[in-house]
């Protein structure tokens, strides 16, 4: 009777123990080579099976193969366990404090005036008003006379003007000269334009007044342009700019280049109309001036006021931004302090 079975038993036990003891992939490989490798202990036992009596061979061979299979399974299990442990250790080592701040992405931004100008122009573009640009340095005729504001007329008091050292040349006080330029360029075609631009006023720079500011002017001229349309168009604008439910009112006013003239107010966006510091207790915020183009201005633009009519309006984008964001100092706009700009 051969003692191979007993040998196998003790070999298997030793191999199992060695597998258990292997602490990492290298140690495990050594164990595999020692017991399961081609020159390993088990291979030696298997080779000795060939020397046995043929009658004994099948039973012993079976035993040996079974032992080999068991060890190979155990090896695979052990390998998996070690890999899992290694992965876990690696992950643990890479563990981060997820509460640390993210890497800052330096973001670019548009100036708040550009942002509001775009918003305003976009709304008007949707209504068919195209952008028309005109110059900052203007003639007195374009800025005043042709807009029905004669020299020395009391209406001139409405604009504090920067004049230049060249006679008859000034910094435009409003974007309205663009009305004349657009009319003269497009006459006799109908017109729907929006005229954004920088304007200048002879003012002390304070929290409430600036020497330069943007204005957005609008002009529509045609054979059938009416005041109901002026109102309809501006109400649409106000609803998109300040919210669909925002109440709007029109007040009679005076501008030399429109008649009838009006000012449009919206219900105060801060108090909703009950009265607060923003609306000076009136419940309303003045948003823009508007009116039907004065016959003299149509005429100066080349249109026959008996046939053509038009409406015009003008608003201050910085003022709208100030109202929307509760900004109380207009000087922030050109001071370009990042602590202001970065909030937009």
């Amino acid at each position, binding site marked *: 009777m051969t003692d191979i079975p007993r040998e196998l038993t003790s070999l298997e036990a030793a191999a199992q123990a060695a597998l258990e003891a292997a602490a990492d992939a290298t140690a495990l490989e050594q164990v595999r080579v020692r017991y399961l490798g081609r020159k390993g202990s088990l291979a030696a036992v298997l080779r000795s099976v060939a020397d046995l009596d043929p009658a004994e061979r099948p039973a012993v061979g079976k035993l040996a193969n079974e032992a080999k299979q068991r060890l190979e399974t155990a090896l695979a299990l052990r390998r998996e366990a070690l890999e899992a442990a290694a992965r876990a250790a690696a992950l643990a080592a890479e563990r981060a404090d997820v509460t640390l701040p993210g890497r*800052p992405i330096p973001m670019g931004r*548009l100036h708040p005036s*550009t942002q509001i100008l775009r918003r305003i122009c976009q709304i008007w573009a949707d209504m068919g008003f195209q952008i028309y640009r005109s110059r*900052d340095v203007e003639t007195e005729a374009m800025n005043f006379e042709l807009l029905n504001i004669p020299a020395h007329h009391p*209406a001139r008091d409405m604009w504090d003007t920067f004049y230049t050292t060249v006679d008859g040349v000034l910094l435009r006080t409003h974007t309205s000269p663009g009305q004349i330029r657009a009319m003269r360029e497009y006459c006799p075609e109908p017109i729907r334009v929006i005229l954004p631009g920088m304007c200048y006023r002879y003012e002390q720079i304070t929290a409430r007044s600036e020497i330069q500011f943007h204005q957005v002017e609008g002009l529509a001229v045609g054979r059938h342009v009416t005041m109901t349309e002026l109102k*309809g168009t501006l109400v649409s604008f106000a609803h998109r700019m300040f919210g669909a439910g925002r109440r709007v009112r029109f007040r009679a006013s*005076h501008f030399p280049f429109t008649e009838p003239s009006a000012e449009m107010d919206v219900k105060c966006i801060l108090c909703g109309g009950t009265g607060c510091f923003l609306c000076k207790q009136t419940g309303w915020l003045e948003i823009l001036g508007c009116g039907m183009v004065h016959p003299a201005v149509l005429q100066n633009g080349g249109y026959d006021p008996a046939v053509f009519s038009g409406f015009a309006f003008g608003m201050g984008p910085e003022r709208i931004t100030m109202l929307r964001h509760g900004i109380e100092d207009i000087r922030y706009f050109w001071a370009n302090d990042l602590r202001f700009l970065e909030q937009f």
Partner: protein
Amino acid sequence: MRVPLSWLKEFVEIPLPVPELAERLTLAGLEVADIERIGLPDAALPWDRERIRVGEILEIRPHPNADRLVLATVEYGGGRPKTVVTGAPNLIVGDKGHKVAFALEGARHWDGYSAGRDITTLKGRKVRGVPSDGMVLSEKELGLSDDHTGVLVLDPQAPVGMPLAEYMGDVVLDLEITPNMARCLSILGVAREVAALTGGRVHIPPAQMRADGETVEGRVAVAIADPALCARYAATLIAGVTIGPSPEWMRRRLRLAGIRPINNVVDVTNYVMLEWGQPLHAFDYDVLARRARGVPRITVRPARAGEMLTTLDGATRPLSPERLLITDTAGPIAIAGVMGGAETEVTEGTTAILLEAANFHFISIRKTAQALKLPSEASARFGRGVPPSAAVPAAMRATELMRELAGGTIARGVADCYPAPQVSSVVTLTTEAVRRILGMDLPRAEVQRILTALEFLCEPQGETGLRVTAPDHRLDIGTGVVGAADLIEEVVRIHGYDRIPVTDMADRLPPQRDAAAVDPEERVRDLLAIAGLQEILTYRLTTPEREAALVPGNGQVSPRPYVTLANPISADRVVMRQTLLAGLLEVMAQNLRLRERLRFFEIGPVFLPGSGNELPAEPRRLAIGMAGRITPASWRDPDPCRTDYFDLKGVVETFLQGLHLRAVGFDPATHPTFAPGRTARLLVDDEPVGVLGEVHPQVRAAFDLPAAPICLAEFDLDALLARVPLTYRVAAVPRFPPALQDIALVVDEEVPAAELTGTIRAAGGSLLVEARLFDVYRGQQLPRGKKSLAFSLVFQAVDRTLTDAEVEAEKRRIVEAAAQRLGAELRA
């Protein structure tokens, strides 16, 4: 215009509560900027109806223990009269019968002794041993003015015991008057508006005077030299007046309207001006007669060279021929409509008054008031236009009031020179014209109703028309198509803007026009913001000195002309900028005090004067400024490196790529603002369009910037955008793999990288799709004066995978070309 409601009510009924009235006026174009209540509920300090009443002084006795104090016994209509201690200098021992504002214990009033405005509550107390549990109030204590020099003395008619709030509480409407509403610079004008808005009627005080004297002709003669400058000159005469204070009611109304009371005659001129809108001037008639040595002959004429006048304010003013004067035979006596002369002024001793009610041309008055810096209530009204028709009724009203308040006898008649009487505007208005402008139908009857309520005369004309004649007080109504527009505004203003329906635009859309000039500019803004830059907008007004600081060292202001302000408001905003760089550097300097990383851009015009009277060119520029760390410091990278030229160039390249500008080049350049050797010109299609680089250290210092690289660029945006292609081709994505090859070429230090790159690209032919410079090496492994530039080359064919042999041949050709042209050697 401050309008006391009590005054307005004399002219028109007010059937609405005040807030509603204010809203109606505001909506109709007479903006009520403020509603001030005096003594009434909702006032800053309402007068207690129980505790503040009209009182009458029964007796004034000396205070037993104090020389400066008196004991006043006051009847106030509530039980026994009270005796109070007072120190008011206008309550004198022995006097009695004064009507006063009397406060009882517990009444709240303004503190008369406080420097500011503080409310205090009246408590009974002993004053120098005498108990006092009431108080006779001053104007300051009532909140009427800051006057606390004596107690307020009411008119004798004031009913004793009446709550003071009832007797003289009031509301003042502060109205913003637009230039077209100049007629509302008067109580009467505002009353007309109220009447039209409420359907009420205006009660005009009778323009009559009780004239018992001899006729005015023979006492004064008036003449006008140029009716274009003075349309009318009317004068009345009253003799035997006694100058003294006006009654309290008149002084109160003047104060509420914002005018300081002076004496009965002057107060009347102001009072009637406020009432009628017609400025008046009172001369001392006896002085005029003395100057004339007989009958004064008044002539309105322009000043003559060399004439002078000492005006009411004591100033002696030389007068140029643009000044319109009131003169007599002895010379100037007043600057027409602006200020009277000192010599003919009404004084305490005056006994006869020549009252002037004239009409001067608004432009003449405006010019004079502005030139002499003498704005006044009178010149404000003349300067906005006063109807000549108002002169005589106002003169008569004022003269009669003087007679009532100052006594005397009025000479019969008015000396009235009115060479060219006012012509009323007549306008034909049809309902079609109304509909054409308003877009809504208003029946003729409604148009007529509104215009009639505004005192226009309306006669129906044809089926739909009205022949409308403007009333004399409407100087703002034109003729023809302008007149029609003027009337349509009146109609819709009174009809109510809130009743205008809302419609969409019905007209056809105008021809759409190319927005090429606008859209790419916005694209540039987007690209730069995407690249991480913050947009700024700076003042377009600057100084030549600030722009001169962009040129180091010379300290000279450029001799080239600027668009220069004739009337700058501050010394640091005097010319229109010619570059964006100065403003940008200032913004950078400010922000660098707070931030360690700046990325800015600005887009906007600069202003380059043309020759002569030409308007300046206003080309658009783009400026970029970068400084500080390349990324914000963080815990991952506490010390990122500093921005330099190449960070700026990266931004420029990126946005040029975004604009699909291909033929872009950067040439070494010199520019006074920039550091030599770190400056380049930007070329697009071989045309220079601007400069970029690091700021010259001296310029940096001039702008208070720290000694670290400041990167700056300024481009001609118009030139740049003119080259932006309308469209561009997009290549197919290759189906075959590319072949990648890295080569390092050693060249002389002087060879610019761009030249070597160009040579490689040219030699590489169509298979070379990319040649990216990824390393520059100088050092021990190379000979002195040499550098190694390493390129990553990508070869690609559209129709096949390239063989190693093909790639090798391409590479060899590149290396040979580089060797031949630039003496490059392949680095082993």
